[in-house]
């Protein structure tokens, strides 16, 4: 499983765009990149997933360069409620026999201030 590296924490202000970068130098060909969000006292929540280039949904955008050794989660115009821990995960969603054993690192603590 590919190891991921993210900043431990980031601070931002309401209304700003936040970019959190994750390094995954030994990503495998079949691996996808997934980001989860976790609020205090809750389980993680899926945000976005991608394989290459750019993916956008109603919550965030995910930018993946051609070499796929890193990825950037972009949160547009954050609010106080976006304060959470953000996890970058890398895994093979098509692994049949053993499923997809998601490996959560320490994540990035995002603090949004007013």
């Amino acid at each position: 499983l590919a190891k991921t590296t993210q900043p431990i924490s980031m601070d931002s202000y309401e209304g700003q765009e936040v970019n959190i970068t994750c390094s995954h130098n030994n990503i495998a060909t079949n691996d996808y990149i997934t980001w989860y969000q976790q609020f205090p006292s809750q389980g993680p929540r899926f945000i976005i997933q991608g394989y290459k280039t750019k993916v956008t949904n109603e919550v965030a955008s995910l930018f993946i360069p051609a070499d796929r050794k890193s990825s950037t989660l972009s949160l547009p115009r954050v609010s106080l409620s976006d304060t959470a821990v953000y996890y970058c995960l890398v895994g093979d969603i098509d692994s049949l026999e053993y499923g997809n054993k998601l490996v959560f690192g320490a994540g990035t603590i995002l603090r949004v201030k007013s």
Partner: protein
Amino acid sequence: GAGVSQSPSNKVTEKGKDVELRCDPISGHTALYWYRQSLGQGLEFLIYFQGNSAPDKSGLPSDRFSAERTGGSVSTLTIQRTQQEDSAVYLCASRARQGLSNEQFFGPGTRLTVL
């Protein structure tokens, strides 16, 4: 529809006692996962079920931990002879069938405190 539910939400027990934690996955989800999260730490994978079988038990920390799933639905995680280091939040997640996405839907967790 209903999400993943877990019970109890909180459990306080004495060292040496056995505990059972329950997970009700989203209806129709074939895969079920157990994780634990210690204070201020990331999630640690424990075990995975596909249907009622557990092809990957590699994360179980010791033989005091066991889990089962019946009817392809409810799962129970059992910790025997609990130790203080077992104190953590135990999270359950479920997922639709293989290959669509690796989106896992998490429950709210069970906070276990071993005194």
